[in-house]
């Protein structure tokens, strides 16, 4: 029983990590109707930039002879992500207003490849061990006293995700910009006609998404080091989005938790009977099953179209 509990808790914690990536997708989709395929690469790029600001073998140190303190590094990285958002709007999105969603989606695939190459060129392909003081390893107290294994980093990730959801919910529901973001998501033309600047809104939402990517990059980077494979965590977020809905912030969290628990329980209990390594495809199977009964996801908006 204790092992089952451990599996479920580990699944929940892993789910939170997936949710952190899924949140970035939701933000952009919610505000601009674009499925940003490059979100995983954004997390990688943000992680790489942060490392190079704060590490003694980063280019910032080479250039100025000192590394930035962690808090300043995070701010500087956020600055980089805002510049990236501005460039994306200026060079890509501006030219694609009112295009079909598939065109916008394709442009983000191109963006992903470009950012991967740029990240490689600017920061190199080495594994960069990220240490910003987050705790690692098992929670000793629980392990020693109750023989229960939970990772400290994942508890921190859960806390961070909770704060992010609250902040984002307030931002979308209670602020002027948040309302403008939702208006743009509903209808580009209508939003423009009431005086909302599409360009500004897109820069803002891509910047916020860049911030979420930075948080995801920090969490995943602390786990495995910053390296190219971080960009592939986007694939982990996909079933979460299908399950939770592309437009719901709480959906990204709940979806993440369901996927996390589902895949861990499946891997541990069913995996040994079918040769193991089933958690990746199990997540997609779970999402597929949900699609059949609820195409808009658990919390997504039901789209009703006149025929």
């Amino acid at each position, binding site marked *: 029983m204790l*092992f089952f509990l*451990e*599996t479920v808790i*580990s*699944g929940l*914690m*892993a789910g939170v*990590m997936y949710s952190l990536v899924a949140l970035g997708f939701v933000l952009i989709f919610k505000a601009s109707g674009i499925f940003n395929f490059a979100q995983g690469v954004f997390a990688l790029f943000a992680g790489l930039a942060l490392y190079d600001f704060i590490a003694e073998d980063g280019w910032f140190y080479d250039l100025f002879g000192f590394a930035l303190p962690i808090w300043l590094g995070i701010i500087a990285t956020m600055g980089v992500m805002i510049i990236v958002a501005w460039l994306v709007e200026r060079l890509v999105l501006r030219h694609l207003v009112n295009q079909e969603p598939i065109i916008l989606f394709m442009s983000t695939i191109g963006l992903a490849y470009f950012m*991967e*190459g740029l990240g*490689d060129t600017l920061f190199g*392909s*080495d*594994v960069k*061990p990220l*240490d910003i003081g987050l705790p*690692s*390893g*098992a929670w000793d107290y629980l*392990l020693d006293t109750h023989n229960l*294994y939970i*990772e400290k980093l994942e508890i921190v990730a859960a806390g961070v995700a909770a704060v992010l959801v609250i902040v984002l919910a307030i931002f979308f529901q209670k602020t002027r910009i948040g309302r403008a973001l939702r208006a743009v998501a509903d209808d580009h033309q209508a939003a423009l006609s009431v005086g909302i600047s599409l360009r500004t809104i897109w820069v803002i939402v891509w910047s916020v998404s860049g911030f979420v990517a930075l948080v995801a990059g920090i969490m*995943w980077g602390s*786990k*495995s*080091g910053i*390296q*190219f*494979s*971080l960009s*592939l*965590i986007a694939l*982990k977020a996909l079933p979460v989005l299908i399950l939770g809905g592309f437009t719901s912030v709480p959906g990204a969290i709940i979806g993440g938790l369901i996927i996390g628990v589902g*895949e*861990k329980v499946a*891997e*541990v209990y069913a*995996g*040994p009977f079918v*040769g*193991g*390594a089933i*958690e*990746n495809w199990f997540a997609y199977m779970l999402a597929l099953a949900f699609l059949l009964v609820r195409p808009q996801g658990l919390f997504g908006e039901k789209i009703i179209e006149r025929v």
Partner: protein
Amino acid sequence: MKLKLLTKALAVAAVAMPLTTAVADAYELVIPATVYRTGPYAPNGIPFANGYGDYYKMLNERDGGIEGVKIKYIECETAYNTKQGVECYENTKGTPPSGGLVYQPLSTGITYQLIPKATEDKIPVFSMGYGRTSAANGKVFPYIFNLPATYWDQASVFIKYIGEKEGGMDKLKGKKIALVYHNSAYGKEPIRTLEELSKKHGFELMLLAVDHPGQEQKATWLQIRRERPDWTMMWGWGVMNQVAIKEAASIRYPMDKFIGVWWSGSENDVLPAGDDANGYLSGAFHAAGDNFRAHDDIKKFVYDKGNGGGDRDRIGEVLYNRGMVAAMWTSEAIRTAMRMHNTKEPTSEQVRDGFEALDVDAKRLAVLGLEGFTYPVKITCENHTGPGKVALQQWDAKAKKWSFVSDFYTADREVVDALIKEDSENYAKENNITPRTCN
């Protein structure tokens, strides 16, 4: 004025033309390299490619190439993708003047695809310590070489080491040994041998697959925590290694009972785990560090001239040295071929002969500036692997250094050779190959 300039330019061009033609006409030994400097496995692919390329550059600068003939080293990016690897092979095999003389795919997946193609094209494939283990049988695989040891050799050496640590091979009975493996052709390669060894010594084998790329392994390590195997082996690559070592530390699995394949034993794999990785073990067939004369020559002839493939301070890392030793054996095989056939323009088929007569003994290693770097290797027509010896190295997190903690063990030949025979004969039967005779 313009006319004058034009006349001068034409004159210079006329004088330079024969010179450039002469340079272009100089025979070169084409060695294509299917590398991966991009993609999720780039952190491992880059140091290997640097060591591999730097050694050839050093030979060109120091000795004027091999036997006085320059090496034309060309890289083709595969991103560790089998399809791209095959495309690279097809695109580079005809590169003039010599055509691709030998391939080092650095991927078991690509190697498997190249086995029939390269055999048909009569181009040797040197899958050093990876690829299809039964390619050791030169009678069935005339163009594939996997020296100096195979995954099956390594798996059996790990079991020998474990037996020794447990107080004798008879003490393995009833023990539980886990294999955490990359869910790919590469990761599955040792399973067959381990199953045989499990029958022979009576230990319980626990198999745990990890899907590409291996960023998330919580479920795997929860199972290890529950089952608590006495020893755990890992056949990983890339991010899978780093995450596994961190997860093992997290569940407090003893690092000195955790052994990685030689592709899971580089600085990249242990550094992200920090002090937690202290004591982690891995297989090895060459030394780490840059305190050999060959390294000094690379620094002097390549890096001092600004031609190095990577950072100077990363010379001597495990994967850099692995690329370097691969280039050393390759260039020695080409040299052997040139001497055997008394030619400065060897063909790929002759290079195959060079591999089959390869004999890099301790004396030759000393001449090459690699005394004690690895063990002597002698290849024959029948045996394309050679000695099949493996040592264990251990990571010292404080000193950030790998050191050997064992001698080079010989593999369990009784089990491994029987499996090689069986597997290669099955391959021959499936592909209508009549094994050649070796006299």
